[in-house]
């Protein structure tokens, strides 16, 4: 439908296809008619190409099911019915929500599926290749997350392995969490998570190994907090998380630069009260810091090239249209070859503008948007029996923030596996864990 009026407009321009007015009036020459046909065909081809490109993009962006606002409803539905490229994203989000609801079995299943995808991304991937093409946005690739998101998936899975008494698999997850962060652009920020190293050390000590390397790394990287002494005899581990995590946005003229938006956390620390003990937990890891210190990606280079192409095509298009118009006007009435060249330049310019418009350098801003900002940890040695832990999340002046106090009931067995509690400032309360 689109090409028809365009061709009609072209035909109304006398300079494109008529001879000298003084000699032939408005009667078209044979040469002019041929040129007009060629131009019409070329323009039609350009429009068809652009339409195909845009249609292809639209087809590839299938929408997910409608959202209800309850992530434990939306997540499983999006995983089952939504676009395959967003499956891991929803597995991440739903697993985090399930952890906070105390639904550890659901979280375990979702994280296992997500990590299975994450571990199998080596080699050529047609969907990832499309994300590198000029006419597809980065977000067409299957989501696996940036390194900080992948690390968090492993950290959560490690916590769940510890809950299940599989300390060596928990340690494997903590090692992988650190591993995901190991190719940062600046080596200073490579593998600088603290909690995974400390937990690796604790697991190793409990398994009878030598924890000194991992412990030394944790102690080197910790900022603004003091790590507890390594005590293999502890039998209760409390993982705490609070504050809003990083979100992504696209910056740059064409949205080709991936950036992170961080919001200050109203929660600065947490206070745990259990069995007559009171322990204050400062953050040992900052997810926002991890997100913003990874440095540039290879994909940023590709998106930058896409943006340059878009700008260049647009500029070339402007120049060609302007040059063609000048040539056509200058040649009008004197030499039909100049008219044709001018027309061709205008056409090429239009095509170039179309290509520029179809180029998609936008960065992928899909994000695991329910991550916390801070991670913390408390270790305890409690007698066997039933206990109730109260966790208060504290503001800047160490005052408990309203509506954020959590109550967790749990039982310490006489012997056997450690008790592992997971408490977020958005956790459901009270909970039995």
């Amino acid at each position, binding site marked *: 439908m689109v090409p028809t009026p365009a061709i009609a407009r072209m035909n109304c321009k006398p300079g494109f296809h008529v001879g000298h007015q003084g000699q032939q009036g408005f009667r078209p020459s044979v040469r002019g008619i041929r040129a007009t046909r060629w131009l019409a065909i070329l323009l039609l081809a350009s429009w068809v190409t652009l339409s195909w490109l845009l249609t292809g993009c639209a087809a590839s962006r299938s929408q997910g099911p409608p959202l209800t606002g309850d992530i434990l409803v939306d997540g499983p539905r999006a995983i089952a019915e939504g676009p395959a490229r967003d499956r891991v994203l929803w597995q991440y989000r739903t697993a985090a929500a399930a952890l906070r609801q105390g639904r550890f079995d659901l979280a375990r299943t979702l994280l296992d599926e997500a990590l299975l995808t994450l571990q199998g991304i080596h080699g050529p991937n047609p969907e990832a290749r499309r994300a590198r093409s000029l006419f597809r946005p980065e977000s067409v690739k299957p989501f696996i997350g940036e390194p900080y998101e992948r690390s968090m998936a492993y950290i959560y899975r490690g916590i769940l392995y510890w809950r299940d008494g599989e300390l060596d698999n928990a340690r494997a997850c903590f090692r992988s969490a650190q591993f995901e962060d190991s190719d940062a652009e600046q080596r200073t920020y490579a593998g600088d998570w603290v909690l995974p190293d400390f937990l690796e050390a604790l697991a190793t000590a409990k398994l009878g190994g030598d924890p000194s390397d991992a412990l030394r790394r944790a102690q080197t990287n910790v900022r603004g907090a003091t790590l507890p002494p390594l005590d293999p005899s502890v039998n209760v581990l409390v993982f705490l998380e609070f504050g809003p995590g990083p979100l992504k946005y696209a910056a740059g003229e064409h949205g080709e630069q991936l950036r992170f938006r961080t919001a200050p956390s109203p929660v600065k620390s947490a206070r745990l009260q259990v069995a007559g003990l009171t322990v204050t937990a400062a953050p040992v890891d900052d997810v926002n810091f991890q997100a913003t210190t990874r440095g540039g990606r290879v*994909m940023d280079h*590709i998106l930058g090239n896409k943006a340059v192409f878009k700008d260049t095509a647009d500029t070339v298009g402007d120049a060609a249209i302007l040059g063609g118009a000048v040539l056509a006007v200058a040649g009008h009435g004197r030499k039909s070859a100049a008219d044709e060249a001018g027309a061709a330049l205008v056409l090429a310019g239009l095509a170039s503008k179309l290509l520029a418009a179809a180029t998609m350098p936008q960065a992928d801003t899909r994000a695991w948007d329910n991550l916390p900002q801070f991670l913390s940890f408390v270790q305890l040695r409690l007698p066997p029996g039933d206990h109730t832990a109260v966790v208060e999340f504290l503001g800047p002046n160490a005052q408990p923030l309203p509506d954020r106090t959590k109550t967790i009931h749990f039982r310490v067995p006489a012997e056997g596996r450690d008790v592992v509690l997971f408490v977020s400032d958005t956790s459901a309360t009270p909970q039995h864990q």
Partner: protein
Amino acid sequence: MKSTILCSALLMGSLWLTGCASSGVKNPSGVPVTRLNPDEQGFVAGTGIESQDLVAVADKMARSILAIPQIANAPTPPVVVLDPVENKTRFPINKDIFLTRIRAQLNSRAQGKVIFLARDRMATLEKERNLKREGAVTASADPQVQEFKGADYFLTGTLEGLSTRTRAGTSDYILYAFQLIDARTSAIVWEDMAEVKKQGLEDAAYR
């Protein structure tokens, strides 16, 4: 007219070539995972522990165990208990699967040269024995006699890993080591190992 079309084609071609968004990126399509010490070929999806590794390692260990004198020349079949493997790699796995496969290989190939104890079923077995002792169920022998066997050997192992990740790719080396330990003397009467190294590089879209 031909020159016009040629001119347009050249212009468009130049735009395409200059706009190749992946230019300057090394291996933009990634490098497929390569198993560097293969004795079995197959599609490898990741650099971690996979089924082909399990099969190769378990086969090698089963053959190796059968050849040792303590098994091959034993007057009576030695009794072996499986002790869980310790995973020291960065890959969370179902570690019991290695010992399960080795046990199945030995049971199917050794034809009674080795006896394994089902220690992982002790709770069920004790419950059944107690029912027999109470007379709640029938017994083909005197249930008061202690017939649960003790172990002559423990079969166990460790999985250790060495991993590297740079912009050039990911490399994972895994050492699978298994031991047969004399339960009476704590002597390691047999040990063997297998090692696998894999490398891979993901698509540039993920780097």
